């Protein structure tokens, strides 16, 4: 039987890992829920953001702020551009899945061409830092990722629920024609949202660079668990994505501590299947 300290440590590690799941799932959840576009390219964008962070930090020796200042506007523009293509070619929900899969493969190939398939690691003085609460170690970077995910999720939720643009976006997602009859210009607002979603992927990328080891093929290793997070958290619900990420992360952490690390990948899908069978009202 694992010790109490081990269980607590695994729970904390899982909770914090879940923050990154939520952060990665945020863009996909909003895009899928409010724009009806299943954008897999966000995974590749996140890794592109991670490699750009690595390049600025490890190769060009620039501060992290420079990476963020470059990534956010560029990714926003990329998101807007991608959305223009979707609109231009009338790409639907399922079409977007295929198109963005292709975009993700293209980005993966570009990453491999630019940075090779070799492992890349962005070494920072604070990379392995942690602090102690009682007998539990709290890793600093994972905590920062969790807090950033929380701020973005809550901020986005407030934006969607309290502002005119946010309400308009939700109304358009609910009933596009009715919203248009009330004078809502869904087109321009959807560009803003698409740009934001891509920027969120960039923010996730910065943390991936700081926390993880980079290899182009790892783009796909996040796909399953983040899809589960997005569906469990309800499409278009930023706080739901964060909560689902945290729940899955915590369950994975406990499964690794109590059972075996090999069980961890099963956890997210078991929860997903369980919830789909349960069919709660909030789903």
């Amino acid at each position, binding site marked *: 039987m694992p010790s109490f300290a081990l269980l607590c440590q695994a729970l904390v590690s899982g909770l914090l*890992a879940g923050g990154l799941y939520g952060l990665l799932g945020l863009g996909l959840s909003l895009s899928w829920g409010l724009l009806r576009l299943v954008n897999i390219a966000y995974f590749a964008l996140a890794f592109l953001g991670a490699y750009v962070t690595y390049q600025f930090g490890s190769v060009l020796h620039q501060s992290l702020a420079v990476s963020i200042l470059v990534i956010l506007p560029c990714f926003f523009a990329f998101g807007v551009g991608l959305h223009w293509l979707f609109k231009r070619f009338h790409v639907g929900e399922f079409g977007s899945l295929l198109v963005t899969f292709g975009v993700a493969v293209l980005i993966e*190939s570009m990453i491999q061409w630019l940075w*090779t*398939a070799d492992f890349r690691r962005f070494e920072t003085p604070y990379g392995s830092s942690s602090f102690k609460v009682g007998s539990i170690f709290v890793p600093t970077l*994972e905590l920062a990722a969790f807090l950033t995910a929380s701020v973005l999720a809550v901020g986005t939720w407030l934006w969607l629920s309290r502002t005119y643009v946010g309400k308009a976006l939700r109304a358009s997602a609910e009933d596009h024609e009715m919203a248009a009859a009330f004078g809502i210009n869904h087109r321009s607002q959807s560009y803003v949202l698409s740009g934001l979603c891509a920027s969120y992927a960039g923010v996730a990328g910065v943390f991936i660079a700081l926390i993880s080891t980079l290899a182009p093929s790892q783009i796909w290793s996040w796909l399953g668990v983040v899809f589960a997070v997005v569906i469990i958290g309800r499409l278009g619900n930023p706080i739901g994505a964060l909560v689902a990420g945290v729940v899955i992360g915590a369950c994975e952490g406990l499964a690794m501590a109590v059972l075996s690390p*090999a069980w*961890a990948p099963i956890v997210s899908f078991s929860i997903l299947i369980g919830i789909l069978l349960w069919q709660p009202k909030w789903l």
Partner: protein
Amino acid sequence: MTHPSLDTKRRNLLSGIAGGLALGLGAANVKAAPTGKPIRIGSTLSLTGPLAQTAALHRIAGESFVDIANEGAGILGRPVEWVLLDDQSKPEVTRSLYEKLLTVDKVDLVIGPYGTNSILAAMGVAQRYGKVFIQSSMGIPKLGGSYDMQFPASPFGPYPEKDYPAKILDCVASLPTPPKSVTVLTSKFPSAQFMAEGMRDVAKQRGLQVPLYLEYEFGTRDFASIAARVKDANADFLWVGALGLEGNQLLEALKKLEYSPKLHFYLYPAPGPLLAQPEAKNVLSHSFFEDHPPFSNRVGVAKLSPMYRARAVKAGVQYTQLDSQGTGTYNSFHLLASAVEATKSLDDKVLGQWLKKSTVDTVFGPLTFNGTYNHGPDRMLVKQVQNGKWVVVWPRDVAGAKLNAS
């Protein structure tokens, strides 16, 4: 069962060495440049996908072999051409590409790809077409036992799951304070898991405690909970069936818990990044070859080593020293070329028969293929990070330095 006479054995040994030297000397003493129709050798490597990082090293070493051969007299006086295709780290793609190599590209000979799963896929095709199949990275030798024309270029020996754990435990038992307990942690990647099970069993047989045996999925991203369990077990020796950067990830997770293993071993790590990690001081790992004496004095290394380094730097590879990985593919080419030169034939059956009865002098030392699963004795080594370099520390007779306690 009959045993060959000493004279026969000696003749085979000499013919093998002659075959090997034919290439080395051919390259050293500039002969006439190779002419005529190239000998086309086909293979795939994982140029993309999860195995691409390591396969890149195999590519560099393979291309180095081809260049060295063509700068010399080629093979049988003919130039060598490597028809290399990208199997995307997928066995099903590997299978199709070997079919293509043999039926569309019509290569003369084949060598194996990188990675056990891809090797098994390619071996099935080679078997169907009766091709000699030399591979360098099948970590589970018994899987190659179904095809008698499969030959291992890397000397794992027939039973590495028993022999190598015994060697590692002999190595750490030589320390002033030998470990009394071992945590065995492994990726579920087949060749690592296979070795980990052996490590657990051999450790128990030797009376060591195994407080924790843990398997994790290949490609695990988060090592935090695994690290917590390793810390909780707090064994004297941590043995990790790690691939690529998993060792680095585990060490970073352990550092966040302010835990440092007393003595630790990583099976198939990415050598450069592990070397660079401060927490990896004195870590142990697996090897067949390191670029220092006596290994660097072996056949072909004098030419291969600088060429490999130059190519690795140009390719942007992090770890540019010649080591076991790339040397495996170089050795596959070397064995094939030795057989062709010795027999003056491209007939796969003739080549296979020659390999079975010969001893070939290689970068991994003299290799034979007349044992179980076509393996000779194992030539596995234990290496250690010392003063920012990988150096072989076991067995003692070939060690480049004395084993350091952590």
